[in-house]
């Protein structure tokens, strides 16, 4: 046989082998059937076991290995194990939730509990529209593990259920309570004799004073400029009331160009115009800007209450970081100065096709027990969504100010959720607009126009499922 002939034959064999290989690997989209084999492990429900956990069913937990680490989860797993000693618990932690778990969702064999958080988070819009999440309603109705006479729902802080609900179904348990505000160092302010301003005019005057003292009044995460959208939208909501946020969340036409948003954008433009922002901030990422702030190069920064644990390694002793609400625009504000944005964050979910959905819900019940919640607070210095979780726990300085701000805000607290409904709108589109606005390249009108264009593009995109909330 000639050499050429052999080559030709083997090439033909290769060609034939390819479709066969396709059959072997199967198509990426064909795995798993849609029958929803969730809850393969089902036990008998009883007073002791309201969720019907099968006591020897294995439980798989995947934790986002971010600012909170994974130790707290291991403690929760140990508590679960204590109650169900026969259950084998498989624990893993990753920073890349979507890349690690995507094939398993398609395959129909997802883990039982997923902490869907971080930059590699799976977009909730897609998860919900594909019915990939188990309904957690049963969990809410179940009695609390260690607070007698109360259901799990009764032990949660207000807003927790709303934030995790899509079209009225509670699908996502956001485990931590996060407060978004403006942060400063009490030490720096005491040393210089400054005090936090309650109105916008006073804030501008204070910025002038700070700048004259040779410190930049503001810095921000220039590479993730959406951090600055938080105080701006907060200012607008305090001026115009929670309906401002409702319109934005529901993608109402021209929601971003409401009068309140216009006034707020005009107000915030002042810190750009007067060069109150640390030079070079547009080129800093969140860590770099927060570190510059910790080093005393800037007085204010916008962040959520994870800031303290995120900056633990670089915060000087006695820095005493304090969170404060955005200054009021004036006496016409619908909400008082103390009103602050508080929301449940750090999402946990049970995939609809998990083998042990009952175990997943029971794991949540363990996390939401008083014991589980207090252990979390102690381990990671953050607030869980369980009322009274901080009782008798000594809080670090920053977290103590968070608790105080929450108390002061009370029923005036507000929130928005468009970032959960439409991840791209905040992460990409509003983010880009904020970058242009806070580096002074566009005017307030252009800024709001750009945000509105982003919201409109989401509203017109048929492949994105839309959600509405009532209030």
């Amino acid at each position, binding site marked *: *046989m000639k050499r050429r002939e*052999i080559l030709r034959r*083997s090439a033909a*064999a*290769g060609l034939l*082998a*390819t479709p066969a*290989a*396709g059959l*072997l*690997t199967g*198509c*990426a*989209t*064909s*795995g798993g*059937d*849609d029958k929803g084999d969730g809850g393969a492990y089902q036990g008998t429900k009883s007073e002791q076991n309201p969720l019907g956990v099968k006591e020897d069913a294995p439980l798989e937990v995947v934790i986002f290995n971010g600012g909170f680490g994974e130790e707290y989860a291991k403690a929760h797993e140990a508590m679960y194990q204590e109650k169900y000693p026969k259950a084998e618990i498989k624990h893993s932690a990753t920073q890349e939730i*979507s*890349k690690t778990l*995507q094939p398993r*969702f*398609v395959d*129909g064999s997802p883990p039982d509990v997923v902490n869907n958080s971080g930059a*590699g988070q*799976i*977009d909730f819009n*897609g*998860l919900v*529209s*594909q*019915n*990939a999440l188990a309904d957690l309603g049963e969990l809410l109705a179940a009695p609390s593990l260690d607070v007698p006479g109360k259901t799990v729902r009764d032990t949660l802080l207000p807003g927790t259920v709303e934030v995790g609900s899509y079209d009225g179904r509670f699908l996502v348990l956001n485990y931590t309570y996060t407060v978004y505000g403006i942060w400063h160092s009490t030490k720096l302010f005491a040393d210089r004799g400054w005090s936090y301003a309650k109105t916008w005019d006073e804030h501008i005057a204070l910025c002038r004073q700070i700048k004259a003292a040779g410190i930049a009044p503001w810095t921000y995460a*220039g*590479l993730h*400029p959406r951090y600055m959208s938080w105080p701006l939208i907060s200012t607008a909501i305090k001026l115009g009331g929670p309906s401002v946020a409702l319109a934005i969340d529901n993608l109402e036409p021209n929601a971003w160009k409401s009068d309140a948003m216009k006034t707020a954008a005009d107000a915030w433009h002042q810190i750009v115009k007067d060069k109150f922002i*640390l*030079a*070079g*901030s*547009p*080129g*800093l*990422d969140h860590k*770099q800007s927060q570190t*510059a702030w910790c080093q005393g*190069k800037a007085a204010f920064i916008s962040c959520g209450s994870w800031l303290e644990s995120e900056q633990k390694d670089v915060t000087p002793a006695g820095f005493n970081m304090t969170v404060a609400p955005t200054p009021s625009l004036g006496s016409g504000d619908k909400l008082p100065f103390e009103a602050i944005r508080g929301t449940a964050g750090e999402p946990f979910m049970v995939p609809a096709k998990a083998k042990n959905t009952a175990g997943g819900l029971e794991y949540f019940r363990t996390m939401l027990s008083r014991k589980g919640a207090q252990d979390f607070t102690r381990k990671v210095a953050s607030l869980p969504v369980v009322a009274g979780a901080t009782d008798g726990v000594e809080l670090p300085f920053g977290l103590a100010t968070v608790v105080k701000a929450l108390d002061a805000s009370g029923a005036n607290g507000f929130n928005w959720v468009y970032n959960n409904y439409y*991840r*791209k709108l905040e*992460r*990409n589109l509003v*983010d*880009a*607009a904020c*970058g*242009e606005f806070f*580096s002074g*390249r566009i005017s307030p009108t252009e800024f709001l126009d750009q945000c509105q264009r982003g919201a409109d593009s989401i509203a017109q995109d048929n*492949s*994105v499922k839309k959600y509405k909330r009532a209030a």
Partner: protein
Amino acid sequence: MRHGRLPLILSFLLPPLAIYGIFVLSPYLQAFQISTTDWLGYSAQADQVGLANFRTLLHDGYVWNALRNNAILLAVVPVVTIALGLFFASMLTMGGRKGRAGVTGVRGTALYRLVYFFPQVLSVVIIALLWKEIYSPTSGLLNGALRAIGLAEPPAWLGDPRFAFWCVLAVMVWSNVGFYVVLFGAAMQAIPRDIYEAVLLDGASRATMLRKITIPLLWDTIQVAWIYLAIAALDGFILVQLMTNGGPNFSSDVIGLRMYDTSFGSENKFGYASAIGVAMFFLTLSVAVLALRTARRDRIEYS
């Protein structure tokens, strides 16, 4: 004897072909198939939508913006990298001025060659993080140097849409040049010295030598470099994702990042992302073919 070789050859050929089929061809084919669906990536449900994804692609301003940046990369990175690579390589092999038959490198050639190769040893991720710190507006090396020479307000580099893209482009060139210095250097070693000696006797300058002798004799190597760099320019994903994530305001976006962001980033439209991937596939293929065609010249053989 002949018939005994057939099983041997087949047993060597089939496993690699099968592996290639399973891990390279079949994902490609699947990507083509997925690109015609509206698959959202987290369930097995995907509806056929025909060419709708490609129609969306044609009107997607963000994709075109990213493509424009890739086009700039394609036009600039290969030319600059090859020019710098040729310049450094020729300095290292024939830049010395010893007065004698001038075909020695500059002093310290070995050291330079080593130093140029450094970026090649580092992983791209490290390069990206390294340069991110260098470009840092407040504490970076670059702005430190600019301030030292008296510039009061140096730019914010990665935070400024005028510079961000070019900053990444510069890093791309920086990280590639070293390899091509070594590649071209090795190829230059293979050029017979008597050719250089002959043209030197004829009184050719070093520039003429480079243009008339070295480049024509290196043409095959340059062509390979060209194709590699062109393909790299159509990618650029890792550097961009780590250094700017496409920002500010999409000014440094590239098509690879668009695909990633559409599937694993801010959305999970795997069907649409596959369509972007398929478009990328054809772009890369056509660029590679074009580069091969336009660079084709007669091969010169020394003998």
